[in-house]
């Protein structure tokens, strides 16, 4: 007993020695909280990579500040080296909260940066990845009231993204790893831009493999999310006129996708169950007490959601031509992963059916 206690003690001392050594006074380090990735056209027709990062600086009076530094170069590694050379202090990475990729970079392909992150053992897999309009450097230098750095702001934005608009939490680095090269899966990242109300989320960036294909606006993004994600929340409304409308705070549950073949053609069924509560209602009278009215609402809502979904699916199949709903994933699970098939094409040419079930679960504390 005594002996192995000694062993443990020795070991612990050793480990503390091992890790305790990294401690440097906090004033002497930068903590990187956000990485950005931009590309720029140079006058001679070449492309220049630019990789800003956003870091905390601790002042002696315990104040925290954030600064942005940028490195430039002909390719990603060069730019990163350039950036590192500009840091005059010891810096800690691994605590980054966000990766901001400019739209242009994303359209060129993010394979190189994802590869670099995957290799780098210090990368924080749980940091959020977002696509931004314009340059990420501008995003980092945008100051939001009450936040030390833009990275904090974006982090907060992402962290609360799943309360509404049917967004999920799957926009982290790990999710990009998991999706980028998997069969039948597609990367999907939030799209942010600076508008007159400040920095906000304006849509979703659709990727095909590692390249961004298209940005869709928030309205479409809601439907896409609803069709693609599990257990997401958002508001659905039926609006008859200015005054008569009903808002339904829905949670999607038990999303089920079935994939089958009929006459050599792939078919997909998406079954959605929406449960939730009515948060405002001026359209249906007596929805609290009458079951018929409630059922009518559920039917109307089902119809509306199905229409919305079908509209989006049409658009996806004929315009975007990518499988942003990850239906290929279900196809691959059903018919095998090892075959070399292009699920984007299959999904674009197959029949997709959406079934929605709406259930009002709670009614709040009354209906005014």
């Amino acid at each position, binding site marked *: 007993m005594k002996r192995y206690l000694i062993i443990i003690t020795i070991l612990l001392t050793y480990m503390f020695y091992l890790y305790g050594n990294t401690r440097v006074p906090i004033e002497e380090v930068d903590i990187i909280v956000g990485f950005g990735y931009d590309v720029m056209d140079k006058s001679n027709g070449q492309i220049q990579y630019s990789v800003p990062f956003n870091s905390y600086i601790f002042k002696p009076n315990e104040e925290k500040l954030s600064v942005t530094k940028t490195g430039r170069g002909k390719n990603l590694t060069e730019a990163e080296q350039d950036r590192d050379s500009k840091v005059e202090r010891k810096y800690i990475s691994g605590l980054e909260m966000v990766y901001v990729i400019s739209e242009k970079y994303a359209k060129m392909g993010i394979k190189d940066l994802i590869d670099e992150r*995957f290799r780098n053992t210090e990368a924080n897999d749980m940091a959020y990845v977002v696509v931004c309009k314009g340059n990420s450097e501008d995003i980092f230098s945008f100051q939001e009231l009450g936040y030390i750095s833009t990275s904090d702001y974006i982090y907060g934005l992402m962290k609360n993204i799943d309360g509404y608009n049917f967004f999920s939490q799957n926009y982290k680095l*790990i999710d990009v790893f998991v999706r980028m*090269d998997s069969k039948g899966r597609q990367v999907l990242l939030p799209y942010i831009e600076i508008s007159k109300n400040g920095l906000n989320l304006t849509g979703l960036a659709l990727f095909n493999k590692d390249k961004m294909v298209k940005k869709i606006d928030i309205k479409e993004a809601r439907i896409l999310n609803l069709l693609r994600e599990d257990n997401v929340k958002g508001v659905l409304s039926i609006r008859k006129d200015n005054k008569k409308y009903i808002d339904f705070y829905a949670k999607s549950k038990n999303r089920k996708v079935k994939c089958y073949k009929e006459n050599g053609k792939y078919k997909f069924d998406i079954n959605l169950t929406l449960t939730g509560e009515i948060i405002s209602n001026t359209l249906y009278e007596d929805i609290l007490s009458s079951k018929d009215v409630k059922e009518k609402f559920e039917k109307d809502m089902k119809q509306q959601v199905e229409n919305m979904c079908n509209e989006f699916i049409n658009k996806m199949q004929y315009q975007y031509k990518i499988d942003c709903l990850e239906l290929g994933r279900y196809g691959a699970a059903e018919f095998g992963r090892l075959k070399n098939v292009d699920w984007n094409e299959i999904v674009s040419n197959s029949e997709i059916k959406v079934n929605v079930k709406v259930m009002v679960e709670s009614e709040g504390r009354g209906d005014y």
Partner: protein
Amino acid sequence: MNNREKILKENDYNLTSSQYTAVVFGTMVGVSTISITKGIVRYAHQDLWISTAVGAIFPIYIFILTMVIFKKSPGENILTLNRKYFGKFAGGLLNLILLVYFLITLLIIGNTYIDMITTFSAGFLSPFKVALAVFAVSAYAASNGLRVVAKVSQIALYLTFLLILPSIMALKEAKIINIYPVFESGFSGIVNGGIEAFKQYLGIEIIFIIYPYLKQKDKMAKVTVNAILLTTLVHVWIGFISVYYLGSDVILKSDWSFLLVTESVTISLINNFRYIFILVWSLIILKSISLYYSALLFCLKDFTSNKFQYKILAFVVLPLLVLLCIEFENIFPTEEILNFITISYEIYLIFLGTLMAITVSIKSPKEQRKN
């Protein structure tokens, strides 16, 4: 003979059944467990978790052999049996190969550990310091006898489960769909993956050496089977959850897939999970090293005279080990060599075990009665 009996009588070397379980479990679950999926995924794709189960054939076979040998001569381990049945020279040669094997394994583990420390934490510590510290601690443990090592193994057993436990949360995060379609890689894929998975169960051969040290002899079968089942469970779970969470395409790329899983699901709860993981994993690796260290000492003892006690032996070998470990990359420059060595040892172990089992059952039908 006298000496051996003396050792057996020493209370220090008598393991309780739970300690024995922990030791057998500890021989198999170690440094490579977090990268278990790496080799198998190439053959078995999303079915790799089945392959990990198939891989359990190896320890089960070794276990059967051990049981055969154990039944006939419960008091002697394979080292003495080798000399007994094959003569001093041939037996000594067989033992020497075993010794070299343990040595190399020890070096591989030590080296992997150094790699891990230097990649995951800031690499300011020289490999020498790390190697010295790790081997010194395990030498201390090993020199104090199997019982101490067994106790370390017991702790390590709990720690292993502690590390695996958080990954259950990944069940919530992802979807079962990554597993489907099951059996797509076919029989051959799964079997090939299973053969690849044998590697993960290496270490079980240590029971050839330590089986005489179990206190309750009648529980041998039950205890060993328990340990093997537990190991298989851990392996299958790791394989399963990795596929479940990451999908086979990502596993193909990542070296430490399980680390990726646990980190992703726990990071929101515990900051700096990676450091905690490495700290705990260090303890587990330390256990592996101590185990192999004792195995090595057993082999060495076989060649040396009675004068050399384990304590002395342990610290005599230490500098050599540290030196070899630092020079590891020069000795085994490529992974292919290592792969080759592993495979040849797998074959050697099966061969040795089978040979001994056959020999024992043919040659000594009477010995059992004596005992």
